[in-house]
């Protein structure tokens, strides 16, 4: 394959790679819940820090990650900028009503410490969820994802859909390339410079039609291959990719559980019991 996909298919060798699929999926889900529920730098910063350590420990291909990071950063930066444009005083609503103006463009457009803090936390939250997801994606293989989901109680037929999709996406994209060049040779112009976008979209049909037909042939064969090897025979199924839990897995599973309980407590106390109206703001006067 000329373009290496960025996900791993072969299990890696580092400490996080070697955890079982169930541990990784469980930890990821809880971390995402944690990120979503917290709008507090005291909670986000440690997770961000741990995720970064995790990413470093996974020895990734930094080039791809940095490009992705920059893209995500710019997108979210633009996002918070829009927040500011729409409501320059948005931070005050969350920090207790004060506005410490640092710089002002006009009576409406000003930069306040409160808004800056609010937007910083918002950006930080996005970047944390990016770091968590990145650590997860880098540490897991599609097979472990399937086995991990199954381990957490997802029916195995759904897990199979996940792993089959990863299995056949490269095959289908190869078919796509083949069909595309054959259409180009027949005269379908797909040069980005020569064809307007609408026409190019229309021409995609010339590729999709044969692609769907060939994929249907393949689906029939795959279905037979599954049946012939007893797929769907039993209510439960085991996974070759699901390694036996080690001490480390046990440690991480207990940590996950602890974190999960913390999340529950936090959500109950801050969102349900007595909904919080203020965020943590260290510069409060």
């Amino acid at each position: 394959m000329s373009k290496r996909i960025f996900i791993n298919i072969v299990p890696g060798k580092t400490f996080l790679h070697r955890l079982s699929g169930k541990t990784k999926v469980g930890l990821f889900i809880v971390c995402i819940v944690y990120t979503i529920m917290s709008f507090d730098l005291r909670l986000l910063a440690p997770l961000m820090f741990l995720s970064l350590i995790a990413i470093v420990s996974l020895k990734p291909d930094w080039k791809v990650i940095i490009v992705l990071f920059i893209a995500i950063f710019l997108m979210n930066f633009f996002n918070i900028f829009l927040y500011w444009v729409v409501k320059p005083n948005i931070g005050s609503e969350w920090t207790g009503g004060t506005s410490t103006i640092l710089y002002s463009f006009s009576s409406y457009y000003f930069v306040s410490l409160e808004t800056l803090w609010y937007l910083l936390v918002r950006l930080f939250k996005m970047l944390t969820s990016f770091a968590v997801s990145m650590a997860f994606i880098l540490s897991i293989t599609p097979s472990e994802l399937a086995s991990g989901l199954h381990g957490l109680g997802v029916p195995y037929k759904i897990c199979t859909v996940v792993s089959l999709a990863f299995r056949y996406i490269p095959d289908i994209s190869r078919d796509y390339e083949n069909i595309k060049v054959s259409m180009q040779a027949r005269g379908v112009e797909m040069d980005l410079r020569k064809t307007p976008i609408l026409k190019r979209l229309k021409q995609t049909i010339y590729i999709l039609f044969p692609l769907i037909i060939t994929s249907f042939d393949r689906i029939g064969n795959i279905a037979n291959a599954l049946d012939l090897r007893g797929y769907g025979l039993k209510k439960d199924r085991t996974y070759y990719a699901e390694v036996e839990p080690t001490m480390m897995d046990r440690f991480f599973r207990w940590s996950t559980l602890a974190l999960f309980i913390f999340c529950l407590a936090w959500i109950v106390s801050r969102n349900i019991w007595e909904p919080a109206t203020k965020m943590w703001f260290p510069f409060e006067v």
Partner: protein
Amino acid sequence: MKNPVIEFHDFGFRYASQSEPTLHGINLTIFEGEKVLILGPSGSGKSTLANCINGLIPFSFKGESTGEVKVAGMDTRHAGIFSLSKHVGTVLQDSDAQFVALSVGEDIAFALENQAVKRSMMIPQVIAAASIVGMQDFLNHVPYALSGGQKQKVSLAGVLHEHVDIVLFDEPLASLDPKAGMHAVELIDDIHSQGKTVVIIEHRLEDVLHREVDRILVMDEGRIVFDGDADTLLCGKLLPEIGIREPLFITQMHHAGCVLHADDHPSSVTRFNLDPYRDSLLNFIQTEIQPKAHYPGEVLIEATNVRFSYDTQEAIKNISFQVRKGEKIAFIGKNGAGKSTMAKLLCGIVRPDHGSITYQKTDLKTWSIREIGEKIGFVMQNPNQMLVKNIIKEEVAFALTLRNLPQSEIDERVQRALTVCGLWPMRNWPVSAVSYGQRKRITVAAMLALDTEVLILDEPTAGQDYRHYTEIMDFLDDLNRQTGITIIFITHDMHLAIEYTDRAIVFADGEKIADDLVVEVLSDNEIIEKANLKQTSLYTLALRLGLPAQTLVDHFIGHEREVKIHE
């Protein structure tokens, strides 16, 4: 007496979607430990028979059956596909579709996973199965990095668990190059010698006979028309009648007027008793053959010092050659040798890193893919990947419409192309209603409508039985004779090269290792070895007769040509 493991009693089957039965009155017993080849042209019902053994019928394909089938003592109608899968392992033709997991180990484990075997019990079984097929060092490999032969080994290992004592191979050779096919046949033989009952469904008789089989069943039109050993089969006249290709050396012996006897074991080119036939064969090569008329036309394509790399992998290493007008050329080499990449370079799909390719002295780099497409047409292996329209006529007109030609000219060109391809009467038929071979013709017609002067066909006969193979190739041959079109075949089929091309360019590891008349190339064992191809049985026959291989091949081609002209 051994135990019967597969029994058919007066069995008949009709698919729910068809009005006529596919199988009629099948009576058949296969015993424990036998190695049986089920031979038959496409549509003879041999795959249907296989599906009755592994339980896909009636599990996945619905229909109406009469009589009964017992496999491993179970009636397949009541046993269900899962209980059968514990006894019968099926290796499908499409090893890509059968490879459902993301690594070798995981794929071999697939059946065990489904039986919810504990992982600790699973691992040793996976390693054991992988060792049988020699893939134990590849357990962590992903499917995309494996060759067709390796994928098939994995498929085989995936069905070789515990209780599986019957292994069914559905056209195991269809997607392999000849050398890989030979290894597959050897591997199947190893599996058989370990005590498994082996059933092989194939139409490539010569390749299967590379290793001995106990019994051959020949199917035609849904019936078993022969049940016996290979020697008897080869002495009869059945094979040509039903459209199955005989081994090449047997055809040669028939050409020489030999009447074969089963006692001489003609099923093996290395072991059969040659003495009674030696004289006829020696006489045969004394006959005059018309030297092939060769009219080298003007140079159409000239490749000079072409180099090309995918990322860091050098795919084409400094290749130069010429193609002349009206030639039929074979690009041969095993999978991955660079022949397809060379074809892509000729079509402008990829461009050379160094060197140049010219068409009638114009450098191709000055043309877009689309412009090159008007001169050099590329016909993909799978016609389904090329067909976009519903109606045959529209499909052929597709490229012309895109070029905004006037309607009158489009009509005229479409009519001409369809007439040449013998599809004019079917012009208003839906594409989906015609056979594979006819779809191939449609793709060729679509190229002809563009007035292309060169056709490049990628494995035009892959997966086709002899009847369809002959149909497609004779059509292309006629086309070449009638219109003078230049044809390049990308193939690893030596038979195709011998019978239908004038010149062969042999690729190995991105280099051109030979460029000569087919006869010369095929009689040079060194080239064949280097290209990792498989020598034809004519070569072995020549060795045994103590003749230069070239003489024998020359006479073979000469005779075939004469026969064709007389027809």
